[in-house]
């Protein structure tokens, strides 16, 4: 959604807002400097959203606009902590621990389901009229042992045994 900054108030507005605020103004399809002057706004250009240096319990949030070295108004972003101490309630650390427990539980459930599916796909190897090879036996055992992997429950793809 294209945004514009009011030159007087500094307020950020969308194109639709400006159209509604100026019902008697005929506006071109594509706005240019003349349009901006008529509306007393500056366009807000896309800003670089941080993708690195984001901690485990942090998130990236929009934080208004900022003027760049060329005096353009651009989107501002900041890395924020997900949690803060609550007066009379949980501390920041307690909330992070609770959040981590939830992530661990979800990852464990997801990976157990994947393990069960992979084992189920090979159940036919264990039919009474077949004899499993040592590789097949080892593969199924590796799947059963996946919960003891050092990365459990947050597994990389490379942590899984290679499918036979």
């Amino acid at each position, binding site marked *: *959604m*294209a*945004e514009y900054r009011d030159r007087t108030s500094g307020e950020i507005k969308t194109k639709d807002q400006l159209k509604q605020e100026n019902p008697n103004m005929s506006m071109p*399809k*594509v*706005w*240019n*400097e003349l*349009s*901006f002057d008529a509306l007393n706004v*500056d*366009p*807000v*250009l*896309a*800003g*670089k*959203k941080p*993708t*690195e240096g984001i901690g485990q319990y942090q998130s990236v949030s929009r934080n208004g606009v900022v003027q*760049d*070295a*060329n005096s*353009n108004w*651009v989107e501002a972003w900041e890395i924020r902590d997900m949690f803060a101490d609550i007066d009379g309630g949980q501390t920041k650390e307690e909330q992070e621990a609770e959040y981590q427990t939830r992530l661990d539980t979800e990852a464990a459930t997801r990976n157990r389901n994947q393990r069960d599916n992979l084992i189920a796909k090979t159940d036919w190897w264990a039919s009474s009229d077949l004899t499993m090879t040592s590789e097949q036996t080892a593969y199924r055992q590796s799947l059963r042992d996946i919960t003891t992997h050092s990365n459990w429950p947050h597994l*990389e*793809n*490379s942590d899984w045994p290679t499918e036979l």
Partner: protein
Amino acid sequence: MASPRVKQTLMAAAGAAGGDPLNVEDLFSTFLYTGNGGTQSIVNNIDLSGEGGLVWIKKRSSSDYHALYDTERGVQKYLSTNLTDQEYSSGVQGLNTFNNNGFTMGTEGSINNSSSTYTSWTFRKAPKFFDCFTFSGDGQDGRQIAHSLGQTPGMIIIKRTDGSQDWYVWHKSSTNVFSGLNTSNAAGISQIVFGNTAPTSTHFTLDHINHVYPNHSGQSYVAYLFADNNNGDGGFGETGDQDIIKCGGFTSSSSIEMQSITLGFEPQWVLLKQADGTSDWMIIDTMRGAPIVTVYTGDSQRLRANLDNGESADTVLHPTATGFNYRIDDTSSQYIYMAIRRGPMAIPTSGTDVFYVQKSTGADYTATFPADLLISTRTSSAPNYVFSRLTDRKYLLTNATDAEADAGSGLSGLFADQTGVNISPNWWGSSTTNTVGWLWRRAPSYFDVVCYIGNGTSGRTVTHNLGVVPEMMWVFRRSDTANRYVYHAGVNNGATNTTISLDTTLSVSDFGNFDFMNGTQPTSSVFSLSHTAANVNNTTYIAFLFATLAGISKVGTFTGNGSSQNIDCGFSNGARFVLVKATSQAGSWLIFDTARGLVSGNDSAMGFDNNLAEAAVTDYIDPHSSGFTINSAHSASDTYNPNSNNVSYIFYAIA
């Protein structure tokens, strides 16, 4: 005198005629979703509460019955095309609200089981597209049933709702009537079911024979009617002369391995069945995937209306710019189909609706639209992978001449995603890999993709659906090695002997003043090819077509000034993506975007022609509201300098 129901619909049609044009995206949607086991709303921007229509849901990931809900029978009542059963009540767990932008459902397993994947096909009632209504049988022969299509139907489906009965299907191209949608049987019922009278633009006829067929006294029925547009009489689109739905038939031939069906438009959804023999009612749609794998193979995701099976990738049916190709292994058999046009038909009004760029850990690119083209690479050293909806998991590289490669079954259904593309981290080898994805959506006047097979004939033309003259075209040979030929209208006024190539830094003259277009500039409907290069016989190709769209995209040129200059693209809020290439001297295909940083300061440059890591070492480019500001960087002859003095450049920018 028209019935009240017909009057109401005709009034609605008149209103639509006087207002905004109707496009296929207003009337039909394939919307994919994953069940959440709770309440879930599907926002497909189809007005069901105000206009009425049908929602057909099928679980994709495993077997489950089809579930059809419509506004005429009301919420929480479903029928299944794979069953003869009466209408069932789902309770609140089923589809429980028709909304003005989609529908809302509860926890019923056939439509919203946690973690299962589903497709929903929504048909909105509209003249010359679709109609549905209920009626009670009266036991009379020659019963005239009024409808509101305003056009002779191409296909009519009738199902008894208060008891068990087959789904009877009349199709304009079948000699007999099908009994029915719930079986693989050939069309074996006499037309006497429909009174031996062809439907008209206002009525269809039913006979009551032996108390078996529809119109038994006291029984309740629902009718679904599908239009058959021809030669622009659909009246859709900005110009009011476009077709969006077509019913037809064809006869297979032993001399043609791949049957080509001409519709007059590129379809997004096809229902197909053999009429004179046993076959399933196959449903293919391009959201789930109908890719072209090789010349005569494909792995389109098939669902079958008469079976409860999950989808399977075992069908060779894929769209072309003018219809679809279907591989048939039998001969001289009669087939019938119903096809719906691909959208969007509306010209985009915002760059964010058709282009998205994201720097990601892993490769989950979350756009607001279903993508048609993804170019992706690691920000460390890596090739630039090109994936498209039309070719699915088959990828090409911009920086090498390699033939197409298969990314493996793990990436099947790459584009079966309403919001962008999600590549498994496994593809990159690690979930912590930093990648960037550039995503395009096909849209009139903006961007198009065409797959074609070379025929080795000079002057051959390929139809496209860009709707305007392409100003830049990339042509990739898929089945063999070749340069990535680029035509750009800004080089020497669009002379066709000014080809350059995405995989090299070569200038126009160093590339050999090569002409792959047979000396003919592209038009708003076709592009021409010579007999070699981009048209080798029995060789597969994919072409990407780009155009300038006011305020959205700009294909242009500039002459470098060795310092700094503003490039006016006619944008309001600056460019989010810029591609720059020197054409009068060697130069990389430099890529800049706002996700990696298009800022007042040092920027990250990458090149489509190489697999180098991004380098944030120089102030190549700055943001500017009307487009971008380009700066001179490095030495004048450096291939990474986007603004060397007196050097000719081409560019492509997106707002």
